[in-house]
C-alpha cells in the first residue's frame, strides 16, 4: 500500500517535472522583440486608471461586451488597451492583474489583443517607492501580494494582538508603515509573481495612427523610438528588480525613464488645461511620433460627454476618468471603431 502511494507520488513528481520543463521551453519573446505597434486594427477599447477597482473593471468589460458572464473573452479581434495604474489606492489590483493575464491569452487566440501599459504606480511598486506615500498601498493590496506562509504567520500574530482590543486594520496599517521586513516580503513576492510580468509590458504603444501612453509624451521623448523607450524602461525596472531580489547590489544608474518628470509614466502637460504646452508643440510631438493623436491617462478628469476627453481639437484624448471608487467611481471607456471615437459609460457609475 505504502509503496504504491510512494510510486504514485514519484510518478506525479515526474509528471510535474515534465510539465515544468515544457513550460520552461515555451516560446518567450526576448524582451527587445516585444511588439508595440499594430496596424489595420478595427476596434480599440481604452480603459484608464483602475486603482484596484476590480468590480468596476469587470462591469466595464461586460458592459462593452468584451467578456461574457463567466469573464471569458468575447471581444473577438478587438484590442483592449488598459493604460496603466492598476495598482494602489483601491483593494483589488491582484484580481485585476489575474483577469488581464487570462484575457491576454484568450484575446490573442481570438485574433484580438489585451495590452496593459505600465503606469507610474506599477513603477512605484516594482521599485518600492509606493511605500513612501500615505495611502497608496492599501491594507487589502498589501495582504494580497504577501507570500502565503508569511501572511499566515503575520495574520496569527496580529490576531493575537487584536484579541487584546486592537483593530486589526490599524495593526495592518502599522505593518505597512513601519515593518521593514514585511515590506521586503511584499516587494520580493510582488516582483516575482507580478513585477516581472508587468516589466514585459510597454510604456508606449501605437495602434494604427494613435499612440497610447500612461502619462504623456513630452517633446524630448517624442524624438525617441517607441521601441527604445520601452526597452530602456524594461532595462531600468530590471535593475531595480535584481536589487530587490538580492541578485545584485543597488546601483546609482542614471535614470532616463524611471521617475523622470517629463518621462512617459509621469508627464502631465498634455492633459493639463492650464499647462505649458502650445498647440505648435503638440503638433511637433505628433509629427515626431508620426501619429494623429495621443491617448493619455494619469491625470483624472470629470468626463460627462466625449468632448470632456478631447484636447487640442482631438489631438489629445484623456481617459483617466476616475473609474476607481477611490476617485469617485466614474465608469467610462473610450471606444475607437474604424477611426470613430465614442464614449461608453455616461449612464454607468457616478
Amino acid at each position, binding site marked *: 500500500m505504502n509503496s504504491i502511494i510512494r510510486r504514485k507520488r514519484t510518478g506525479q513528481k515526474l509528471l510535474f517535472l515534465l510539465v515544468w520543463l515544457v513550460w520552461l521551453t515555451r516560446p518567450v519573446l526576448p524582451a527587445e522583440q516585444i511588439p508595440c505597434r499594430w496596424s489595420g486594427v478595427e476596434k480599440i477599447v481604452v480603459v484608464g486608471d483602475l486603482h484596484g477597482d476590480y468590480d468596476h473593471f469587470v462591469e466595464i468589460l461586460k458592459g462593452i461586451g468584451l467578456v461574457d458572464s463567466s469573464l471569458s473573452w468575447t471581444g473577438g479581434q478587438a484590442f483592449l488597451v488598459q493604460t496603466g495604474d492598476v495598482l494602489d489606492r483601491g483593494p483589488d489590483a491582484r484580481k485585476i492583474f489575474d483577469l488581464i493575464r487570462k484575457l491576454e491569452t484568450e484575446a490573442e487566440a481570438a485574433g484580438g489583443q489585451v495590452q496593459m501599459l505600465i503606469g*507610474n504606480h506599477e513603477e512605484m511598486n516594482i*521599485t518600492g*517607492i509606493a511605500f*513612501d*506615500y*500615505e*495611502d497608496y498601498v492599501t491594507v487589502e493590496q498589501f495582504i494580497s501580494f504577501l507570500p502565503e506562509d508569511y501572511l499566515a504567520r503575520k495574520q496569527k500574530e496580529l490576531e493575537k494582538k487584536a484579541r487584546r482590543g486592537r483593530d486589526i486594520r490599524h495593526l495592518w496599517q502599522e505593518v505597512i508603515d513601519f515593518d521593514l521586513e514585511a515590506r521586503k516580503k511584499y516587494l520580493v513576492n510582488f516582483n516575482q509573481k507580478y513585477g516581472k510580468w508587468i516589466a514585459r509590458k510597454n510604456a508606449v504603444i501605437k495602434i494604427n495612427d494613435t499612440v497610447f501612453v500612461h502619462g504623456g509624451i513630452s517633446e524630448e521623448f517624442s524624438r525617441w523610438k517607441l521601441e527604445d523607450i520601452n526597452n530602456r524602461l524594461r532595462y531600468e525596472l530590471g535593475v*531595480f528588480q535584481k*536589487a530587490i531580489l538580492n541578485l545584485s547590489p*543597488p*546601483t*546609482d*544608474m542614471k*535614470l532616463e525613464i*524611471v*521617475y523622470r*518628470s517629463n518621462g512617459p509614466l*509621469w508627464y*502631465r502637460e498634455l492633459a*493639463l488645461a*492650464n*499647462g*505649458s*504646452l*502650445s498647440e505648435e508643440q503638440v503638433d511637433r510631438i505628433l509629427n515626431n511620433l508620426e501619429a494623429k493623436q495621443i491617448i493619455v491617462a494619469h*491625470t483624472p478628469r470629470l468626463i460627462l460627454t466625449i468632448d470632456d476627453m478631447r484636447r487640442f481639437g482631438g489631438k489629445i484624448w484623456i481617459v483617466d476618468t476616475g473609474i476607481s471608487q477611490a476617485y469617485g467611481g466614474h465608469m467610462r471607456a473610450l471606444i475607437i471603431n474604424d477611426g470613430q471615437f465614442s464614449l461608453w459609460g455616461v449612464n454607468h457609475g457616478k
Partner: protein
Amino acid sequence: MENNKNLLKTGLVMMAIAWGLFMAASDYLCGDQKEREQLENFLSKARIVRVSKGQAGGRTAPWIVSLDDGRMKGRAIFKYVHRPRPAMIPDSYFYELAAYELNKLLDLDIMPTVVARKLDGRNGSLQVMLTGVITEAQRQRKGLTPPDEEAFQQALAEVVVFENLVYDQCLDQDDILISPNTWQVWRIDFSESFAPVPELLADCPIRRCSRELFNSLSRLDPGLLTNKVKSYLSEQEIEALLKRKDLIIAAIKKLIEEQGEEAVLFTKKKN
C-alpha cells in the same frame, strides 16, 4: 428689517476686515526679507485649517495646507517624501530645507519661505504657496514680456548660479514662478538637488552674477555653511557642495578676467 440691515452692515464690515487681512497676508507672503522670520514663525505655528491631499500634482504628491494664526491666513505646500541618498531614486524634503538654508545664508530671495513641520503624523517641509503666479513656461506660451527685461534676466542669472550651487535642473520652466505684478522671480522644487557631484552643471553655464551674490559666496565660511545644512545633508553631499561653491567663484573670476567686470557682475536692479 432693521435687524437685517444691521446684519448686512456687520457682514460687510467683517468682509472688509477679512479682505484687509487677506491682502496684508498676501503682501506678507511675497517674502519681504525682513519679514522672513515672521513668516517662518507663521508656517511653524499657525493652526492647520485644512489639508488637501492629491491636488497639487507633482511626483511627491505634496499636500496643500490652509493656515490661520488668527491674524493672517495663507496657504502652504507640504512635502513629506523622504528618500535621501544613497536611495536609487533620491527625493526628499530635507533637500528643500537645505536649499532654503543656503538661500538665507547668501541673502538671496529666490525661494519661498519654508520650514520643517509635522503634519498628520508625518515630518515634512512646509512652504509658503505663492498665489497668482505663473510659471516661466506659461509666460513663454502667453508671450508675456517683462517690463524691465534687464531686471528679469538678472533674476534668471541668479537662479542659474543657485542651481549650480545646489546641483539641480537648469532653468526648468515649470519650477520658475513669476509674480506677474512685480515680476519677482521664484525658484521652487529642490527636493532632488544636492547630488554629491563635485562639478558644475554641464548644461547650465554661469555667465553673470550679481555683486551681492558673488560677495556672499566669496565670504561664505565653510564651517558656517556646514553647520547650517548638516542636519539635512550627508558628508559627501556637503563636501560636493563646498567644492561647487569654490568652482562657482573660480568660474566667475575667470569670466571677469576674460570679459571684464562690467560684463559679468551687475548691481541688482530692484523691480
